[in-house]
């Protein structure tokens, strides 16, 4: 058992996902079995191996870093669930 219920709840807090007690219990079981299963990677000797982050074998092209006006505020705000005078609106943060 790698994780306990407190760790699950801590991770869920980091990921900003609220879990019900039942969900947390369910996830605890699944995540422990997944983490046990991925443990097998420890069998592999990776002492002098460089981590692979980008698989592209071609040299990635660069572009000029130029400012472009690509979108209007209206378009950006179009899908927002709540907006106010050209801004995204969220619940009050400061009292």
């Amino acid at each position: 058992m790698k994780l306990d219920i407190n760790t699950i709840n801590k991770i869920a807090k980091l990921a900003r996902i609220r879990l019900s007690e039942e969900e947390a219990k369910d996830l605890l079981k699944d995540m422990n079995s997944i983490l046990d299963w991925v443990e097998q990677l420890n069998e592999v000797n990776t002492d002098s191996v460089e981590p692979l982050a980008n698989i592209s074998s071609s040299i990635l092209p660069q572009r000029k870093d130029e400012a472009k006006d690509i979108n209007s505020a209206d378009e950006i705000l179009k899908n927002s669930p709540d907006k106010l005078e050209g801004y995204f609106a969220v619940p009050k943060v400061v009292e």
Partner: protein
Amino acid sequence: MDFKSISQLKSLLDENKISIKEIAETYIKRIKEKKELNIFIYFNEDKIYEQVKEIEKLPNDKTLKGIPISVKDLFCTSNMPTTAASKILENFKPTYESFVTQKLIDQGSMFIGKTNLDEFAMGSATNTSYFGNTINPLSKNDNPLAPGGSSGGSAAAVAADLCLGATGTDTGGSIRQPASFCGVVGIKPTYGLCSRWGIAAFASSLDQAGVFSKNVTDASILLEEIAGHDQRDSTSSNVQIPSFSKNLNPSLEGKIVGIPKEYTVDGTSDEINGVWEEAIKSLEKKGAKIKYISLPHTKYALPTYYIIAPAEASSNLARYDGVKYGYRAKNPKSLDDMYEITRSEGFGKEVKRRILIGTYVLSAGYYDAYYLKAQKVRKLIANDFVQVFSDCDLILTPTAPSAAFPLNEKQNDPIKMYLNDIFTVPASLAGIPGISIPYGHDKQGLPLGIQLLGKHYNEQEILNAAFALEKDYE
């Protein structure tokens, strides 16, 4: 009228034997008849007829003029909503068009709808969608089967003759495995061949767009249209895109095909090993030289994938916060409340599971043990392929360890579900191209698939070999 392929429909159009409006009517009728399969998340007749008017105005030399295409609902489209099969994007209307779908539109494609998928492409059965399961069109009445996943809707749409081509995305097998389950052709090109711009991100170092079709020639036609460099995706490569369809050549004389011993695994059905054997013999008969090879780190591919993909997903899916777009929880008491309840109500179980695993393996104290370790093993897996391809032109394997399974099987055991991708994940980790083509059937008459893998940017080689093998079942 029966439409067998893109090339056939194009000649009917050229000879004025059918109009674009008639094509639209035919496919609309079919889609309505197959509604119970739940293949489409979005289908709207009016949108199709609107496109017909635009397409009619295009010059006749547009490669895909009037061709009915389905789009996986992970691609942002500006005239149809895009949900990623998630409640969190239920009402999302993109203000822009993805690179891949724009290229298809430019060539005159007719988008007939947005297809179902696993939520955010996380799954292997199209059963984690907020909009319900898709049913494999090859199911018999009393036993509904899964179409595979995550691009199960797209594979099913092609199999059910509801379009002649479809877009998909493949992160660990999400094009090749459903292609195999539904008995159609599915190709995942080299990582970076098609721009990821406008595709809802899952695991950015693995995600790659590709296509489904009824045959290898059509896959070549579609792939050459959606490939190409795009400045808006920093990993999009600037390579010359060959004319895959014109170059198709079934000759295998002198080609060396590798058969990896690690792909003989417990739990693979005898029938699948049987068609693999049959394909090996066929390649040999066609002049290829068979070489038994080893990819020693194969067994570590799945655990590596299930660290890297969730890690990247946890980061990519942080953007769904209820502020900029998508679902927002009702009446939150505070900002934190809003984030937490929005994401709790907006994401399904599998997505939450992966976000939490990803968050854990990236968290302080665990990063080296899990994420960095996985990236190192990924390097070894990629090296296995580099080594093998120094004296092989191609690799031949089965696509999936089973034929399509019943809808609700493997639901309760995530690892069992993950094992579906055992033959497709290694190529994803190595970024090499892979194609699945239907090759034979099991005792119940369900299609089986075989997979051909090639070197980076060598799509032509796998298309050629697939083209040659396809003839065995014509």
